[in-house]
Structures are given as structure tokens and as C-alpha cells.
């Protein structure tokens, strides 16, 4: 069968990488230079295909010099294909940018071909080698696609927030930043959010609500988790598993009765309402995560302390808490993130703009009167603290999440 030959692999990999990178780099070119470029997949597909065949034939003899020559040849071929006018753009545009774009496309395509066809011979391949080839190809493509799809919405978010209304309407694809513009014009949306839209209040409210939630959650869940981890009592298993079931209950089922009750007692439109509701949703998570951590500590220390005459409550304060400080800090930060990101309850409960949290405040920006870049600037402001916390506790969060302490 022809697809079992290395030659076919080289044609396959070469054309796929060529077409793939052509699409990606054309898009990047449009977004970074802000000029219309026409997408032509075929030329790079053919160039990639030829370079694939070239690589598989001469891979053992290729030196650094040949690598560079190939890349330049590929770039040159693009110009030849297009009669010296790649992307069919007018003369007036900056040709050096276009050259760099094409050169990068060629270089990355060549590197990808090198990576996928490394150590593949031209003749018939064994099943093992063949599958390895396809896996490697899929791995490379998959990795790049995953990185792109996660980054693109965030990239658009940040770039949109730095644009002004005029340029957005004029050309929605122009994400080139004017480096010469001063700080004030670049961060105009942010400045307006803080001066005209009360975002300093929203930030403070969100911060306040999240901190109080963290405090209440830890205050109740540390002793609770210790009890679940160390003490013997009947129906302990039942209790542990019903804690998990609690966080399967969605807040949309609870929101109507809470809304009704809080309205009647006059609590609804207040930050206190959020401070009452949030811990109820975070305590089960914190309890679960901390219980896991306390159980992983050796119980011998506790036994020794008991022998020495310390009471259980003293043990919690003098031994359990100091020993698990890093875990408690991380659980606290995680709870902070949950409270910070919460949308539904804040949206339903808060009417008064002076007590809006960030989520609620951004929701109020979602109208036709407020320009898009303000909305995106608000989104960036809400995301940054979460990102900082995440980078700080990534390791713990990953191990904590993957052992089951997961909140939707």
C-alpha cells in the first residue's frame, strides 16, 4: 500500500504543514499589520510538499547551511509563484513586513517538516514507525491548535480593550498597536471605567465580598475538615459523601427561593446577602480539599500531643493549622477565585450600582450605549487578579483539583 511508504509520509506531512502554517501566518499577518491579505493555501501546500520530499531524501546530509538555503529558497518560490507580488497587495504597503511574514512561514514550515520526518526512511515503513509518524504529526498539530484556541479569545480581549471606537469600526481586524501613542490614549478605556463607571467601587466590593467569604469559609471548614479527617464518629462516611452531593445542587435551583426570602426580609439588595450565600457554596469545596490534606499528615503527631495532655482544640490551633499553612493559603485563594468569579447570585441580587461586584458591574456595561472596548477592559480587569492567583498556586491547584476538590 502506498501510504505505508516514507515517501508518502513526506508528501503528506509537507503539504499539511505548508497549508497549516500558511493559514495561521496569514491570519497573524492580518491581525498584526492591520492590512488586508489574501489567503492562498495552495502555493505553500505545494512548496511544503516539495520540501518534504527534499528532506526525506537528503536528511542525513543536511547541514546548517543547507537548512538556511532551503528556507530562503522556499521564500523565493513564494515570490516566484506570485510574480513578485505575494498576497496581491498594492505597492504602497510595507514590503519588508511581507517579506518577514513569508520568511517566517517558510522557516516554521521547514522546522515542522524536520520535526515530523525525523528518522523516517524513504522506503516501506514498519507499523510501529508508521504509527509513530502519524502520532507525532497529530501531536504537533494538536499542541499548536490547543495553544491557539486558548489564547485567541484572551488576545482579542486585551487588544480590543486598547483600541478606540473609531479604529474598531473602521477595520475590525486591525490589532496593530500604535507604539507612538501615549499612555493616556492607549489605556483610555481603563481610565474611563475608573473615572466614569465606578469601577473602583466594583473592585473594592468584589475584593471585600471575596475576602469575607474566604475568612468565613476557612473559619468553619478548618475545624470541620479536621473532624472529618481525624475524629471517629458515627455516619462519618455518609457525611463525607453528602458534602459532595451538596455541590451537585446548582445555584439556579436555589436562586428563586433565596430571592423570595431575601426580598421579604429586606436583605436582597445588599452585600451582606452575598456574604451569606457564598460561603454555603464554598464550604463544601474547602472542607473536601482540607480533609484530603489533613488526612495526608501523619496522625502520630496528634497522638503524641494527646499524650502530652493537649486537647483536640489545642491540637487544631497549635499543630494542624501551622503544619498545613501552605494548603490553607491555597484553599483560601481558591475560594477567593470562586467568590470573585461568581456571577448568577450577584446578578440577581444586586440592583444598586454602588454595591455592584465586578461581575455585576461588567454585566451593566453590556448595552448598546457602552462601547465594546470598555466591556473588554472590564473583562481584563476582572481576569487579571484571577490570573495572578492562578500563577501563584498553579501547582497546588492542579493537584488539589485533580484529587477531586473541584468546584464548577
Amino acid at each position, binding site marked *: 500500500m502506498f501510504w505505508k511508504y516514507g515517501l508518502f509520509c513526506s508528501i503528506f506531512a509537507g503539504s499539511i504543514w505548508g497549508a497549516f502554517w500558511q493559514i495561521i501566518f496569514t491570519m497573524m499577518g492580518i491581525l498584526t499589520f492591520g492590512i488586508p491579505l489574501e489567503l492562498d493555501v495552495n502555493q505553500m501546500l505545494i512548496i511544503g510538499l516539495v520540501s518534504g520530499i527534499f528532506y526525506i531524501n537528503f536528511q542525513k546530509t543536511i547541514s546548517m547551511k543547507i537548512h538556511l538555503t532551503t528556507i530562503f529558497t522556499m521564500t523565493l518560490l513564494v515570490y516566484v509563484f506570485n510574480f513578485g507580488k505575494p498576497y496581491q497587495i498594492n505597492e504602497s504597503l510595507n514590503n519588508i513586513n511581507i517579506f518577514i511574514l513569508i520568511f517566517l512561514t517558510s522557516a516554521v514550515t521547514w522546522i515542522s517538516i524536520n520535526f515530523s520526518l525525523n528518522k523516517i526512511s524513504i522506503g516501506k515503513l514498519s507499523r510501529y514507525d508508521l504509527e509513530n509518524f502519524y502520532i507525532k504529526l497529530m501531536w504537533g498539530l494538536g499542541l499548536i491548535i490547543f495553544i491557539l484556541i486558548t489564547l485567541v*479569545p484572551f488576545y*482579542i480581549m486585551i487588544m480590543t480593550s486598547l483600541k478606540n471606537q473609531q479604529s474598531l469600526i473602521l*477595520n475590525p481586524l486591525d490589532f496593530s498597536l500604535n507604539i507612538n501613542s501615549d499612555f493616556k490614549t492607549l489605556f483610555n478605556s481603563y481610565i474611563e471605567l475608573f473615572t466614569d463607571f465606578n469601577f473602583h467601587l466594583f473592585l473594592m466590593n468584589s475584593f471585600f465580598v471575596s475576602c469575607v467569604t474566604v475568612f468565613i469559609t476557612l473559619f468553619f471548614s478548618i475545624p470541620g475538615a479536621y473532624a472529618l479527617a481525624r475524629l471517629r464518629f458515627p455516619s462519618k462516611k455518609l457525611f463525607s459523601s453528602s458534602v459532595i452531593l451538596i455541590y451537585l445542587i446548582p445555584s*439556579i435551583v436555589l436562586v428563586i427561593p433565596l430571592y423570595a426570602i431575601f426580598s421579604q426580609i429586606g436583605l436582597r439588595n445588599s452585600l451582606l446577602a452575598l456574604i451569606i450565600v457564598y460561603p454555603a457554596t464554598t464550604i463544601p469545596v474547602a472542607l473536601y480539599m482540607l480533609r484530603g490534606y489533613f488526612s495526608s499528615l501523619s496522625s502520630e503527631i496528634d497522638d503524641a500531643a494527646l499524650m502530652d495532655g493537649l486537647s483536640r482544640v489545642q491540637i487544631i490551633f497549635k499543630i494542624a493549622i501551622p503544619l498545613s499553612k501552605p494548603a490553607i493559603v491555597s484553599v483560601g485563594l481558591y475560594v477567593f477565585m470562586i467568590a470573585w468569579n461568581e456571577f448568577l447570585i450577584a446578578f440577581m441580587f444586586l440592583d444598586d450600582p454602588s454595591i455592584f461586584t*465586578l461581575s455585576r458591574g461588567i454585566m451593566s456595561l453590556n448595552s448598546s450605549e457602552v462601547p465594546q472596548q470598555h466591556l473588554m477592559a472590564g473583562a481584563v480587569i476582572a481576569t487579571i487578579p484571577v490570573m495572578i492567583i492562578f500563577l501563584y498556586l498553579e501547582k497546588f491547584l492542579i493537584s488539589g483539583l485533580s484529587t*477531586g476538590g473541584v468546584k464548577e
Partner: protein
Amino acid sequence: MFNKFKKNESKLYQKERKLAFFLLLPTIFIILSIVIFPLLANFWISFKPISLGDLRPPKLIIKENLRGKLINKDKTAEIHYRYRNSSAKYDLNNVIFNDTIPKGFTIKKIEPNDTCEIKDKNLTCNLEKVPAKSSGKIILKITTNDYWKKNKDNPKNTRPTTSYQSKNILTSFEFTFDNFKKVFSATEFIQVLKVSIYYTIFGTAGALLVGLFAAQILQKSFKGRTFVRGLLLFPYISPVIAVAFSWVILFDPFSGVVNSMLIQMNVIDKPINFFGQKYTDISIFGYIFKFPLALSMVIAFEIWRYFPLSFLFILARMQSLPEDVFDAAEIDGASPFQQFYYISLPFLIGIISILFLLRFIWTFNKFDDIFLLTGGNAGTRTFTVNVYEQAFAISNLGAGAAVAVVIFTFLLVFSLVFIKYSKKEAF
């Protein structure tokens, strides 16, 4: 000796038991009052004819006005008390209102005569019943006396106080099946059910498959792996409001990047309203079928936002798989696909099924994402969005609660399945 030891042991045990309940009590209390009690209250509300407006209890509104000028003894002025029942639905019973008349005035006449009486300058009116929507007036004819000449007083300085009883719809025993009738007989019920099921199944399965794929990619060690692993978690940890709106803006039909890009590259002729168009025609081999566009976009968002979770769980499980199993398979000549199919997959099937159930329940419960992306329009209304729609958009709290009961019933079934299967897996 042994008995004594046993006795001590049981004493210690009792002490521990007490302490444990004491330590867990606040948690139990909070969960009971903020989760379990509202859950039961939701059932209660779902059987009640209650709208959003009923939450404001009926009030007696009184306005006091002075007519005429207070100049001298001979001239009479009038104090008008206008009262009104604020509710359009509920009567006020046992209505009594009091006001103090300042010393400087003498009351000549009260209209209507039979309701009010005066004792030591204290006016007490017994209005008995003020029916819904109704209003009325009490007029006092007054003159000023000598005392007033020294201390010029205004009768409006003292505010009238009221006391009354009204029915509170939340606590009354008035029940109805109308909410459920309305929810089940609505023409959109089948549509909502279908959308919920599509959304849940495709969202869950998609996020799992993408997560599995991502885990396979990240299992291989390479430079910057930790960085990429953190990067892939971004969609999951970011505030939903931020990522949902950035998707909306990304796919905006007028100024969105995706539409402009597709037009620029000659893929489409005119912009597509990704989150606002219910169906789009797609032709495959000349056979045209209707593709649910907005629903697919919402599912795509769900997959994008939640694949990191499946990815994280699956990756963690894969890294606990002993390396030498693969080495042995390698020596036996198993190809990479065979290794995946015969070793990795059976090992992962437990965590995958648990994840599937868990994500299934959470996706079914998902509200924020759909609400922010489409508002439940363009064929994306799931049960959760319907709760909001009924309770807060149409202002029928009872019907909203009835939809929530339907959700909870589904949830109960899913949870039972979940418990049955999770016993096998240590969750």
C-alpha cells in the same frame, strides 16, 4: 484490667464524637439554611400562584396635607389624610392609624365621622379593611387656639403611624397546580427538553474527548510543558463573564474578528450572526439540511471552557500509570495505537466515566454561559435559562420554581446513577 481499658476507650470515643459534631455543627447549620431549606422552599413556591411583584408586601401609604392657611382662630383649615393600598391583589385588614395633633389646634369636625376618635390630642382611626387597589380620605377641620400663637406649630411635624395585617402569599396556604400545568403544557417544553439534552450530551462528550486528546498531547514531556499545562487551564479559571463576552465580541456579526476574517479570506460573502441565528443551511452532496448554529456555538463554548477540567483529571490519572507497563509493551512490539487502546484506555475508563457523569450533571445545570452568550434566544433555551425566563423575565416566580423542580428531578436521577457508579471508583 481489659474492661477498664475498654471503658476508657469508649469514654474517649464519646468525647471525640461530641467534639466532632460540635466542630461540624456550623457547617451543617449553614448548609441546612442556605442549601437545603431553599431547596424545600422551592417546592413550596412551585405550588403557589406567586409573581415577582407579590414579593413586595402590600403597604398602606398615607399622605398628610394641610389645606387652607393658619392665620387666626376664626379661620378653619383642613388636614387631609389620603391613604392607599399599594397592592393590586391583596386586602389590608385591621388597619389602624394614629397621629398626634399638636396642642395648638382644636379639632372641629372629622369626616367620615364614625371611624376616628380623639383622646388627649391623639387621633386614632380604625379603618378596618382597605381592599386591594382602593384608597380613601380622612379630613380633619381644625382651627388654631391661643397656644398656637406662642408656638407656631405645623400638624405635619408629627408623622402618622399605621398598623395593619395583610396576607403574605409566601406563607399563606394557597396552592395551585397551574405552574406545573403551564410548564408542561407550554409548546416550548419539548423544545426546551430537546435543547437541554443536546447541549448536555454534546457539551459533556465534546469536553471529555477534547480533554482526553489534550491529555495525550501533554503527557509527552517537552520543553515548556508546565507552561502549556497552565495555559490550557486559562479558560476554566477565568471569570465566566469575561470569557463569554470576549466570545460574543469575537463572533460579533458587525465588528467581530471571525466574521471579518472569513470575509477577508473569501470564505463567506456576508457576515454570519453566530449567536443569533437559529439555523443555517448546510449542503452536503447537494442535500441541504438545517444546522442549529447558535446551539452549536454555545456547545463549542462549553467544550472550550470545560475541556481543561477533563484534561487535568485524565492527565493526573495517566501520570499515575506505571511507566514499565509501556516499556514491556514496547518490547513485545505493541504499536503506539495498540498501547493506547489496550493499556491507557482501560486504565482511564474509570476516571472517564466518573468525569462523564459529573460533567453531565454540571452541564445540565449550566446557566451563566448560555445566558451570557445568547440570553436563551435562537434555539438555545435550556431548562436552567427557562427558570430565569419564567421567574424574572415573565415575572412568574411560581412557574420558575416549577421548572427548577423539573431540573431537580432530573438531577436526582443523575445523582443516583452517579452514586451507584462512583462507589466503584474512589472519588
